[in-house]
């Protein structure tokens, strides 16, 4: 009787023994997540790199290695040069505008006033609502004929109906429009980041500075800004990465138009690689995002390391 019980419990306890080793269980716990990410992010990334060096299109899946020819092709293409330039304008324009709005919005929301909770809840919306849905609302507000913005400008007497701008159909206005929409999407995030940073500045530090004679601006720029820099930098990194690689705003509002005036890297990669089926050139266009992403990642790692010291 005792012997039977012993043999029955033995395999179970050996299994238990392995699961009770910290390193083994730890590895078992981590591996599914790492495998998923390796298989569906790591491997595709290497595939994208190989695509960009091959002659692969959906009509000719031959995988011939062509070296840097694709990159040479697109670099000579004036449309691509325009796209690259647009991407930087789009990214920095909307980030700067978003940061300014975010900083002032945070200053406004710091002060208690009746209805602050409601205003704060509403201010989060542009960032929370799915990008495609918010973008179509803006597209409707910029409509060539029924634009509410134009209607207001006309009603206020700034312009006549004949002068009403076609926001999404004019070169510079179209770029301005997509920048506005993207800054509008980003500024609530900037507000939240600034608020999180500012409220984490210890009050006694500020009090000490006030006692020492530092005024509002001095406290603001010599104490608060340097102290919240790490968290703002992380927010900015997110903003830059997601704007620089964005496709949805441009795709829904302007389709890169008029005549490529708002075409950005993500959009051009999509048009070439998916719509036209020229996968290798599309991959090469997308890979132009990589240097910027790498710079951003290096910055991020430096900030995380500084935080730990």
């Amino acid at each position, binding site marked *: 009787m005792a012997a039977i019980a012993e043999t029955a419990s033995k395999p179970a306890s050996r299994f238990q023994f392995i699961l*009770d080793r910290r390193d083994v269980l730890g590895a078992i716990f981590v591996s599914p997540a790492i495998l998923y990410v390796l298989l569906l992010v790591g491997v595709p990334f290497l595939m994208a790199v190989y695509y960009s060096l091959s002659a692969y299109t959906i009509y000719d899946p031959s995988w011939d290695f062509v070296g840097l020819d694709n990159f040479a092709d697109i670099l000579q293409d004036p449309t691509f040069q325009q796209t690259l330039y647009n991407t930087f304008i789009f990214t920095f324009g909307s980030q700067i505008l978003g940061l300014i709005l975010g900083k002032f919005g945070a200053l406004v929301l710091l002060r208690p006033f009746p209805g602050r909770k409601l205003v704060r809840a509403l201010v989060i919306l542009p960032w929370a609502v799915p990008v495609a849905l918010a973008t179509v609302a803006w597209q409707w507000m910029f409509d060539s004929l029924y634009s509410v913005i134009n209607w207001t400008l006309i009603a206020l007497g700034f312009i006549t109906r004949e002068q009403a701008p076609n926001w999404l159909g004019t070169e510079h206005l179209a770029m301005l429009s997509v920048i506005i929409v993207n800054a509008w999407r980003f*500024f609530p995030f900037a507000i939240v980041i600034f608020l999180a940073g500012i409220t984490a500045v210890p009050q006694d530090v500020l009090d000490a500075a006030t006692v020492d004679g530092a005024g509002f601006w001095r406290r603001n720029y010599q104490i608060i800004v340097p102290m919240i820099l790490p968290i703002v930098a992380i927010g900015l990194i997110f903003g830059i990465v997601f704007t620089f690689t964005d496709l949805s705003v441009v795709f829904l509002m302007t389709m890169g138009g008029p005549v490529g005036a708002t075409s950005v890297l993500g959009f051009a990669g999509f048009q070439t690689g998916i719509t036209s089926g020229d996968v290798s050139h599309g991959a090469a266009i997308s890979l132009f995002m990589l240097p910027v992403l790498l710079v951003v990642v290096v910055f991020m790692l430096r900030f995380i390391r500084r935080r730990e010291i």
Partner: protein
Amino acid sequence: MPRMTLGKAVQETSFYGAVAFFFILAAFPFYWMVITSFKTNGDLYNVSNIPFWFNDAPTLEHFRYLFEKTLFVTWLLNSLIIGLCVTAITLVTALPAAYSLARMTGRRGEALGIGIFLTYLVPPTLLFLPLSRVISALGLQNSMWSLVVIYPTFTIPFCTWLLMGFFKSMPREIEEAAIVDGCSLLGAFIKMALPLSVPGILTAVIFTFTLTLQEFVYALTFISSSAHKPVTLGVATDLIRGDVFYWGEIMAGALIASIPVAIAYNLFLDRFIAGITGGAVK
């Protein structure tokens, strides 16, 4: 003394002016969604009408059209199914990974965690070309199941990072006490760590769900048949016939799909910020 009060009045006025500016900036597009979705077409497409309120009586015709004549309900269901499946996959993989990384000794856990999180920053626009080939190799092209496979590539890194911070803030002694009392390591995780981290798990669930709702690029790339579209893609691309935009229906659909996400974000905002900044502020 009157000068002081004048100065104060100017200050107050400009402060409330700034409040009003941010209020309008944030809320107007949504007000515009609401008013467009309840207006009659005659009212909507008449430039001599004042656009800010109803010139004709409000109508439900756009909502009726949306629910009866379009695939809107299917899109909502698709989004729900995608969200639930992705959340399940994410929890099963990210929970143990986050726990293990948080409890790993030395810097290895931290380094691995940062490595996983960095993949969250690899953009869809860099991966959609190879992934569309992976999808067709799996035979999932034009099906919403492709999104169930692909969305965990960004929800797993995000939630692992979020939950890692959560497990780190949980004292190790609780599990150690359980182990001393005869619990196995696995048992300590299941019986002690998991029940205590329910708030963290709930946050992860909410954000996984909203991230899947917000995604647009992969859905646009992989899915072209209307019946398989998630709600954001369907509303943004499927309510256009030729050159005619069904603005009333588009705005009604956008409104309905936005509401749950807006509520979720407002409820869980602080945790989200703590999650992505990884405790950069102490």
